[in-house]
């Protein structure tokens, strides 16, 4: 049986709520986008209800604690139906009183869950490392990223705590939303097509500060000078800085526009 939800975390939580409500446990939670019509399978459309979702969250927290509850969210951000299903399966077990299952690394669902967590965590860490702010003439620092997974929600507090005294935007171009810090609070922002174009070409909408190119150049210079040619190891270099990230790294693309 398929439960089709709206793709939000709350929507996924509601799948768990409905499963217990209807006593249906062999369920695949999936989004419309990922669903391929299957004439033999039953389909239920799940309505996202924040009250039901909160109850599920609260229930999870009571049973496994805050951190593991957060793990379900982290794994959810992997954006993969198989992982959603593994998480669903594990959450159902937790609610049925079998929370120990989470440490059974011999179990397939647990391995999928821990594998997703590892990959999401790596991507989150990469975003902490690879975000590159450019300063615009009005003092705003902005950065564009295209992470493999939807990790922006996981890096908000890191950037907020670190860059408290400067306004910034980190924009996920792949998922078309960003987070904006105005030195007081965080808000979600969505740019329209023209603005997005402007950000990517980093010229029109956001006019760069004069100093910006100067520091980009210095950083590029530093990157070259700190390299030891006699130790060249491109395989290792590429493993740590995969090519798909180069687009937004000035040390890798400066002067190549």
């Amino acid at each position, binding site marked *: 049986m398929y439960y089709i939800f709206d793709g939000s975390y709350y929507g996924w939580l509601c799948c768990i709520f409905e499963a217990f409500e209807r006593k249906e446990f062999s369920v695949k939670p999936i989004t419309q986008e990922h669903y391929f019509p299957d004439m033999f399978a039953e389909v239920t459309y799940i309505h996202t209800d924040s009250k039901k979702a909160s109850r599920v969250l609260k229930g999870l927290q009571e049973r496994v604690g805050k951190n593991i509850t957060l793990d379900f969210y982290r794994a959810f951000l992997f954006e993969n139906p198989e992982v959603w299903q593994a998480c669903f399966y594990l959450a159902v077990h937790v609610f049925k009183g079998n929370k*120990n299952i989470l*440490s*059974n*690394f*011999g*179990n397939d669902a647990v*391995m999928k869950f821990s594998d997703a967590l590892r990959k999401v965590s790596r991507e989150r*860490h990469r975003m*902490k*490392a*690879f*975000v*590159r*702010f*450019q*300063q615009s003439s009005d003092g705003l*620092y902005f*950065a564009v990223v295209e992470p493999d997974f939807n990790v922006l929600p996981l890096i908000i507090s*890191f950037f907020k*705590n*670190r*860059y*408290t*005294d*400067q306004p910034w935007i980190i924009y996920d171009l792949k998922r078309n939303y960003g987070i904006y810090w105005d030195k007081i609070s965080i808000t979600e922002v969505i740019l329209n097509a023209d603005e997005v174009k402007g950000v990517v070409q980093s010229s029109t909408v956001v006019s760069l500060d004069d*100093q910006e190119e100067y*520091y980009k*150049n*210095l*950083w590029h*210079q*530093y*990157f*070259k*000078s*700190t*390299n*030891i*040619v*006699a*130790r*060249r*190891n*491109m*395989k*290792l*270099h590429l*493993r*740590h*800085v995969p090519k798909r990230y180069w687009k937004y*790294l*000035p*040390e*890798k693309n400066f002067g190549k526009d």
Partner: protein
Amino acid sequence: MNRLEEKLKILADAAKYDVSCSSSGSKRKNIGGIGDASSSGICHTYTEDGRCVSLLKILLTNHCIYDCAFCVSRKSNDVQRAAFTVEEVVNLTMNFYRRNYIEGLFLSSGIFKDADYTMERLLKIVKKLRLEERYNGYIHLKTIPGASDEMIREAGLYVDRMSINLEMPTEVGLKLMAPEKDHESVKKPLNFINQEIQSYKQESKLIKHKPTFVPAGQSTQMVIGATPENDFEIMSVADKFYKDYNLKRVYYSGYIPIQNENSLLPQIGTKPPLVRENRLYQTDWLLRFYGFELKEILNADHQDLDLEIDPKLSWALRNPHLFPVDINTADYKMIIRIPGIGRQSALKIIQARKFGRLHEYQIKKMGIAFNRARYFMRCADSPFQLGYTSMENVRAKIVNKSSSKSKQIFSTQLNLFS
């Protein structure tokens, strides 16, 4: 190229032989300014040599009164000289940091005039960053040997990590390359700072808001392959320094030949000993995280590490009587000694086996190097074996199947014909 760019080029180039780029171990919080220290550390990029770039690593100046043969900034070397002003270092750091290029600053310097004079300049930069820019990011500062205790103590209040390099692993080696230097002048400040760290730790248990003192601890570095010390000598020194001064890290830096007239040093064109360096780091990890004693890995009978295979595998091959280990019953300490199994997989094994005896297909999914581990462990479904497998065979099988970097070195001759 403008002047600042030129300075950055010279002074980053001169600083790059200091391999430490760690930005971990400090929990400095952002107190009403900018920046904090991430306790796990963050590598913001990697150079083409595959090394991490976490900190803006520069010398304040490469003018130096010393003439150490191994050092590119030595007095007699014909290189371009430059010096940053205090403002330049502060501006570079802040502008790089605000753009999220770096985790912080690693500041070192050639010795100009004398130790105190140099240390005073370094201290000025650090204080300006902390007090005027209200910067709370990571700072790694070189301790200048011979600087006064007062100066060192003050610096310790503002920085996250301090380090002094041993340079050559033994006193004899050092004397050959740098007659003006000795290990004693490194030990003294290492010891002084360690005492201070320990006493601050004691006090902070009693007082709640005690200022931090070098919260990310101290480190040192040894150059490998410039002088004839063997691996046993090198690791004995490292082991002793870890124990005596509570060092967070010892770095091993394969010597990269620079222009030099000293006939004792490897000349330009000689390849840096990268595999050996890697094996030393592996040994270092075994000592610090895997519960190994140095004498198990290196001793009077085994004075050099095997370059072809890693030190844990090498140890296991010398101790066939301890294997195979039954992963369903052995304790954690023994499981992490199985070649190919790391600490994380060992923890997973310990947790997972509570749910039933573990089989090979389950172990394979836990992220272990099965090709190595298989010869040293027993799972629930491993076929029972009579007697020991010959370790010579095991070694050959593992080496033939692996595609590690060390293998390339040993197989270049074969490649000629393939």
